[in-house]
């Protein structure tokens, strides 16, 4: 059995009367990609800051790479990388100058290693480019390079692909998967469903509590308290109100030209059609694949 890379037991952080992280327990194995999904203020960043040793915990315990987060912070920081959503890059410096700056912070001086690091993120021929001239996707890669220049075993990624399109996101995640193949473990905080889909397991945070942690497909299968349906009535708003009052219906959301309904497992499509159409026929009701957003709203909404 491999040693877990992160273990937390009842990890808690209080600021005065406010509990930002509330008795969170989970484990992350080596070479896993684990996401931490939650709205702003749900305790994601506070958790990461404790795991990085930047913030002392109030209760519970946690180990990162076998080191205690409150007592062995130096050892942890030498062995983990952190890429924040606001990449701390120097715009006026070149790619190479940015990388050597971060390498210097970690005492990494060997030129060959820096060249290799740039090649790993696919920037081997961009040494002399000024950061200000790079598109967002390349800055992201450079930020990743600065986070892995000291060969960390664990990488924390804070909303690494927020604001980018699926193409750029996919290119970035392919890099992450390559790093994971080479032995790195990745812990990703995000409030984007699209980003969470790239994780092998996803934890759902709400108001400081970890509500569930599992593979995205398992969450969709098991964490949803019912079945998902798409309902296409003639009058969307009237049907919305009618369905909200219908027995067994857990959630109704407007989805553009139709309604997304989550209803208890024993509610049949015909019953939904009847409720949505006020008894009249012609309402199309089809079973839907639940999305991670359905799960999230069901657990955290």
């Amino acid at each position, binding site marked *: 059995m491999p040693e877990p890379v992160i273990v937390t037991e009842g990890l808690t952080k209080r600021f005065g009367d406010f509990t930002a992280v509330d008795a969170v327990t989970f484990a992350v194995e080596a070479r896993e990609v684990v996401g931490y999904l939650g709205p702003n203020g749900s305790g994601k960043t506070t958790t990461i800051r404790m795991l990085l040793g930047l913030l002392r915990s109030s209760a519970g315990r946690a180990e990162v790479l076998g080191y205690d987060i409150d007592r062995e912070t130096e050892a942890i920081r030498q062995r983990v990388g952190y890429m924040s959503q606001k990449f701390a890059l120097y715009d006026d410096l070149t790619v190479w100058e940015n990388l050597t700056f971060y390498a210097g912070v970690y005492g990494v001086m060997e030129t060959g290693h820096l060249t290799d690091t740039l090649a790993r993120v696919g920037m081997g021929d961009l040494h002399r480019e000024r950061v200000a001239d790079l598109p967002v996707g390349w800055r992201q890669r450079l930020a990743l390079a600065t986070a892995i220049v000291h060969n960390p075993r664990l990488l924390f990624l804070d909303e690494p692909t927020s604001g980018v399109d699926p193409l750029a996101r996919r290119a970035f995640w392919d890099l992450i998967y390559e790093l994971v193949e080479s032995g790195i473990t990745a812990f990703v905080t995000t409030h984007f469903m699209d980003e969470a889909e790239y994780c092998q397991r996803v934890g759902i945070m709400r108001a400081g509590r970890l509500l569930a942690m599992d593979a995205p497909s398992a969450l969709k299968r098991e964490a949803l308290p019912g079945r998902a349906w798409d309902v296409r009535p003639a009058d969307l708003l009237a049907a919305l109100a009618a369905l909200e009052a219908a027995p067994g219906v857990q959630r109704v959301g407007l989805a553009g030209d139709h309604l997304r309904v989550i209803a208890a497992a024993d509610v049949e499509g015909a019953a939904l059609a009847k409720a949505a159409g006020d008894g009249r026929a012609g309402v199309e009701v089809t079973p839907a694949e639940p999305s991670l*957003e359905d799960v999230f709203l069901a657990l955290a909404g």
Partner: protein
Amino acid sequence: MAEPLLQARGITKRFGGKAAVDGLDLALFPGEILGLVGPDGAGKTTAIRLLCGALRLDEGEVTLMGLDLRRQVDRAREHIGYLSQRFSFYEDLSVMENLRFFAEIRGLSGVEWGPRANEILAFVGLAEFTERRAGKLSGGMRQKLGLASALVHRPKLLLLDEPTGGVDPVTRQDFWQLIIRMVRQEGVGVIISTPYMDEATRCSRVALLQNGRAVAEDTPENLRRRLAGRIVEVRGAPLAALRAAAAGLPGVADVQAFGDRLHVRLAAAEPETAIAALRAVLAGTDIRLDDARAIAPQLEDVFMAYAGRGEIQDA
């Protein structure tokens, strides 16, 4: 079919010789939400700025409710609400004071703006916060105030440029419920730009933009149907080896890795053949195949297919 609220024909905008928007045609009907979806640099923001008259057209024409945007931009703007990625308020003014300011620059009289301000603040859910300073609002509340400001003069066309960047999923859900409700109740037409596929699926129609042009335009349903039978979801371990094996099969156009599964895109809708070929190539290896099945394509699959090689043939 009703008259379009907005009609854009061949609109073009060049910056230093490079066309950011290149001969784009768009039509929007009342009660519709049209999504402009595309990668960074596809021309989404430029298109929206052209449609609200903030940028001058180099070529083409835009008609809004019968008004020519090139010659009657001031009159046309009376019907346009606009919310950009980086809207800002007077941080020291209250919610109501900010709204009054926006109402007045929109030409609403003192008699008109008060009742309308109360109505719109109630609609977006800020009725209890009229005295709060804008600087003290949460991200979600700021966004609602932005929406209220854009709607205060009862526009017929609402232009939203990536309005939900940086807000969390619960807030995003609330925002979309408001937009869809407004469209349904008041027959407003909305054009929204977004890089997010989950937002695109909420639109009535989606235009996929690339290099300033629409490479596809249809309802999210119909766009997804274009890939019917061509997406196979594969699970197993190790995923990287499985991905390499799938990518090497004949008839496989592309393989995308997600956290716990692969999406294999086929060149033709023959999922049974592809799944059989995958099983054959994995036989005798230590790569485990847990599940392989044709799934309903996601909008993201469609986006990738168009972005990749333009391999979808438009019907």
